[in-house]
């Protein structure tokens, strides 16, 4: 299990507001806030594949139903296509098996569910980096993490705007 230090005051901060102020004493944090500890690079890449398909499916469904969402959906799809290609190159270089195509999610127009899926994608990248065991792979997935985090923030801003409108 990663050290408590590793999670204090980071992206899990919504669960860790209290712990962030005392990074050395948050060893007793609840299980729900523990980072996933991946066993291998293959597991990390497979998880990212699954999370990415879920985000893509949810976002596509929302874009079909909500005017103005298509440009964001197209941008995310373009980024994801590039990321998938990078991951395939990584799999090839690291001699990892190709993943099977994950099933798309059920149709759902909930922005909250989209946000949750995108957050899980971000966490899969962040929590996966230590398991990669390859500096080049870390560099690639860190760049993908930047894109995924930016997209998560766009979704957050989108939800805020919807709440203000309501």
């Amino acid at each position, binding site marked *: 299990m*990663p*050290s408590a*230090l*590793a*999670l*204090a*005051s*980071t*992206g*899990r*901060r919504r669960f860790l507001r209290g712990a*962030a*102020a005392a*990074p*050395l004493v948050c060893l007793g944090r609840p299980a729900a806030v523990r*980072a996933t500890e991946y066993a291998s690079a293959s597991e990390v890449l497979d998880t990212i594949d699954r999370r990415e398909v879920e985000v893509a499916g949810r976002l596509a469904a929302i874009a079909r139903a909500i005017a103005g969402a298509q*440009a*964001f959906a197209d*941008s*995310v799809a373009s980024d994801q296509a590039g990321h998938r290609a990078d991951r395939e190159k990584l799999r090839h270089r690291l001699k990892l098996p190709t993943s099977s195509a994950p099933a798309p999610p059920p149709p759902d127009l909930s922005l909250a569910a989209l946000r949750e899926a995108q957050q899980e994608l*971000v966490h899969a*990248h*962040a*929590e996966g*980096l*230590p398991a990669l065991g390859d*500096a*080049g792979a*870390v*560099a690639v997935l*860190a*760049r993908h*993490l*930047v894109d995924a*985090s*930016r*997209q*998560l*923030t*766009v979704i*957050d*801003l989108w939800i805020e705007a919807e709440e203000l409108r309501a």
Partner: protein
Amino acid sequence: MRDGRRRFVVRIARAAGVVPAVLSLIEGRGEALPRGQETDFAILDAALVIEHHAIAVYDTGLQRGLFPPGLRDRAVEFRGDHVGHRDTQIAISRERGGRPPEARAHYDLGPLEPGDGFVRQALQIEVAAQEANTALISHIDTRDYLLSAAFILVDEVRHMTVWRRVLGFRIY
């Protein structure tokens, strides 16, 4: 990183006090340091001086009322994130026997413009922090620090994206 942006990030990192060996990593000039605890300390120190600088920017903006009134809460939140990053990285460094750098007594932040001008200044330090972290993260050897750096990167991207949105720049 494109040349113009790299020069900008290096300028901010140098102004913040990042040591030359780590500046060369940010500049993308190859493996300037061997992987291991010493490199982790160098990266921790670099990340910390940038965090100190970011906190100084937010402190100045908040104390002098330079952020647009509607964005003060965002600035308070982002300052809090940087304080959390600083404290976490200080704790990681000390846990490993390091001597983390302290904040300077004074930061020369240049001309201080209120409103969007100051949001631009906050954006600059966020871009520098994010670009430096992205450049350095693959050189980190310790799993715990790598995980921590990844979540710090998530926060930096969030700050940067919000300020870019405020200033009307493209965010997707």
